[in-house]
C-alpha cells in the first residue's frame, strides 16, 4: 500500500486502450478513451497519479475535486451523445488509493464532487449503459464510491495486490487503535473487515474474480483474456436490471448479509401495511 498505487491502473488502461494521455482539457490524472471492444465502442476511464496536479493532496492517485468532476463530465458526455437503443458501455478501471485528504478539498466541497461523479455513473447505469468496473489494484473508501461502485458489474483481479476496503489498513489501524497484524487477524474472523480480495468476493458484491497471470504487467494473452471478460460482463449487464439488485440478491449476499436481508424483508412487509 505504498507509492505504487495507480501504476497498475495506468498499465491496464494503456494495454486496453492503446492511449496514454488525457483527453483535451482534462487534468493529467484522468485518462479517458473510446475504444472498440467486441461489437461496441466503449468508453474507458481511469484515475492515475499525477505529480503535477494543481491540488497538492491529489498527486498520488487519490480522487480529488478535478478527478471527480472530470469523471462526471466524461460519463455525462457519453450519456449525452447516445440516442440509439444500444447504449455505449462504460468501463471504469480502478486503482485508487482513496479520496483526496486536503483542506482545499474540504473548503471547496469535495463531497459534492464525489456526489457528482456518483450521480453521473448511476445515471448512465439507469439509462441502460452497461457500466463495468475492473478493479486491478486498490479501491478504497470514497475513492471507490466516486469511481466504480455504481457499476452494474464489478470485476476484480484475484491477486494480493487487489484491495477493496472502506479504509486503508494503516488508517484503520490508527483509528481503531489496533496494530496492522491485529487488523489482519480480525479480518479473518470478521469477513467484512478482511483486506483479502477472496474474502471480499464471498460477500457477493463482485460479478467475477479474474485470475490473471502477472497482473502488474499486461501481456497480449492477459489483455485478450480481460477483454473477453469485459465483453461477457457487458452482455450480462445488458441482460439484467439497471439497478444494483444483482449485488443485493446474490448468493454471497444470501449467505453473508442475512441481517440485511431480514431488515429488508421486514421493511417490505410493514411498508405494505402502514
Amino acid at each position, binding site marked *: 500500500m505504498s507509492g505504487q498505487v495507480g501504476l497498475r491502473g495506468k498499465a491496464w488502461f494503456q494495454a486496453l486502450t492503446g492511449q496514454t494521455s488525457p483527453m483535451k482539457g482534462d487534468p493529467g490524472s484522468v485518462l479517458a478513451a473510446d475504444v472498440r471492444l467486441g461489437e461496441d465502442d466503449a468508453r474507458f476511464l481511469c484515475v492515475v497519479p499525477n505529480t503535477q496536479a494543481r491540488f497538492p493532496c491529489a498527486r498520488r492517485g487519490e480522487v480529488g*475535486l478535478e478527478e471527480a468532476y472530470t469523471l462526471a463530465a466524461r460519463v455525462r458526455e457519453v450519456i449525452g451523445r447516445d440516442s440509439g437503443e444500444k447504449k455505449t458501455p462504460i468501463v471504469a478501471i480502478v486503482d485508487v488509493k482513496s479520496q483526496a485528504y486536503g483542506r482545499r478539498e474540504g473548503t471547496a466541497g469535495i463531497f459534492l464532487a464525489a456526489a457528482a461523479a456518483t450521480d453521473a455513473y448511476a445515471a448512465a447505469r439507469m439509462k441502460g449503459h452497461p457500466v463495468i468496473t475492473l478493479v486491478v489494484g486498490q479501491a478504497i473508501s470514497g475513492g*471507490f464510491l466516486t469511481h466504480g461502485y455504481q457499476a452494474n458489474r464489478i470485476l476484480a483481479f484475484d491477486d494480493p495486490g487487489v484491495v477493496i476496503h*472502506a479504509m486503508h489498513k494503516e488508517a484503520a489501524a490508527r483509528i481503531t487503535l489496533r496494530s496492522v497484524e491485529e487488523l489482519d487477524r480480525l479480518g479473518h474472523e470478521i469477513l467484512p473487515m478482511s483486506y483479502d480480495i477472496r474474502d471480499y468476493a464471498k460477500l457477493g458484491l463482485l460479478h467475477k474474480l479474474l485470475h490473471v497471470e502477472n497482473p502488474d504487467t499486461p501481456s497480449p494473452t492477459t489483455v485478450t483474456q480481460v477483454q473477453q471478460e469485459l465483453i461477457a460482463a457487458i452482455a450480462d449487464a445488458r441482460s439484467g436490471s439497471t439497478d444494483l439488485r444483482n449485488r443485493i440478491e446474490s448468493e454471497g449476499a444470501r449467505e453473508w448479509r442475512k441481517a440485511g436481508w431480514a431488515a429488508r424483508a421486514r421493511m417490505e412487509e410493514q411498508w405494505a401495511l402502514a
Partner: protein
Amino acid sequence: MSAASMIPAVSIPEFVKRRSFIELDARARAQSLMDSGSWRELVGPFDRIESPWLPKQGIAPQFDDGCVVLKGTIAGEPAVVIALEGGFQAGSMGEVSGAKMTAALDLATKDSENGKKTAAVLLLETGGVRLQEANLGLAAIAELLASLLALRQHAPIITVIAGTVGCFGGMSLAAGLSSYIIMTPEARLGLNGAEVIEQESGIEEFDSSDRALIWAIYGGEQRVAIGVADELVMDDASKVAAAVCEFVKAGRPSIHRSEQVDLYRQRIGALDTSKQIDPLSLGKLWNAKRGAQ
C-alpha cells in the same frame, strides 16, 4: 452577502421558548417533522433486527441499529423520514441500518412509480461507514446512493443536518445527491473531517483542534454561503419542520446540484490552488443565491 448577515435575527423570548431540534434524539426528530398522527415507525426497535458484527467485537448492538424509519405524510403529501441516531456508533452505516435505508427508499420509489409520489427526508448525523462492518458498510452506502438516485427521479430528497455529529464520510455523498439540504449553524458537512485530514496529510494541512477553522469550512453558514447547501435554520424544531415542509411542497428542482458538472468544474478550475482557499472569499466567488429563512 457576509456570513454574519445570514444568521436570522431572533428575539430573546423567541429563543428561550423554542424547542431545540438538536436536543431531540433521532426518533423524536423524525416524529417532529411528520404530520401529527400520520406516521408509523417501520422495522423499529421491537423488531430487534440488530448488527450481527458488533457483538463479535465486544460492542453492544442496538435494536434499531441506529436507523429510524417513519412512513406518513408531510404537508399532506406521502413521505418517508429516515433518521440516523448520532448517539449510537456516531450514526455510522452498517449492514442493517444500510439495508433499512435502502429498502425504505426502494419502496418509496415503487410507490412513486405507481402514482403515489413519496418524498424522502434524511436526517443525517453520521460519520459514514461503520468501520467494524467495513466493507458491508461501504457497500451499503453505494447501494443506498443508487436507491436515492432512483427515487430522486420521482420525488424530492430533503437532507437535514442539524448537529452535533454532522454528516461525514460516504454519507456526505447522500447529502450531495439530495434535492435540498437544510443545515443549522451547529451542523457540519464534508467528506473528510478535520481529524482525518490531519491524520492523513499532517497538522500543517489541517489543525483539527482549530474549531473556528472547522466551522468556517464545514459549518452550516458556510455551506449555505457557498451554495452547496440550501437553507440555514436556527436550532428550533418548528423552524426545521417549516423548512422541510416548504421543500416537500416545492417538489423536485428542475436540475439537481450534483448534475451541474460544468458549472462546478469551471469553478474548481478557476480556483487559485497555490495556497489554502479562504472560506469567506469562496462565498463571494461562488455567490450563493439563497440566504437564511
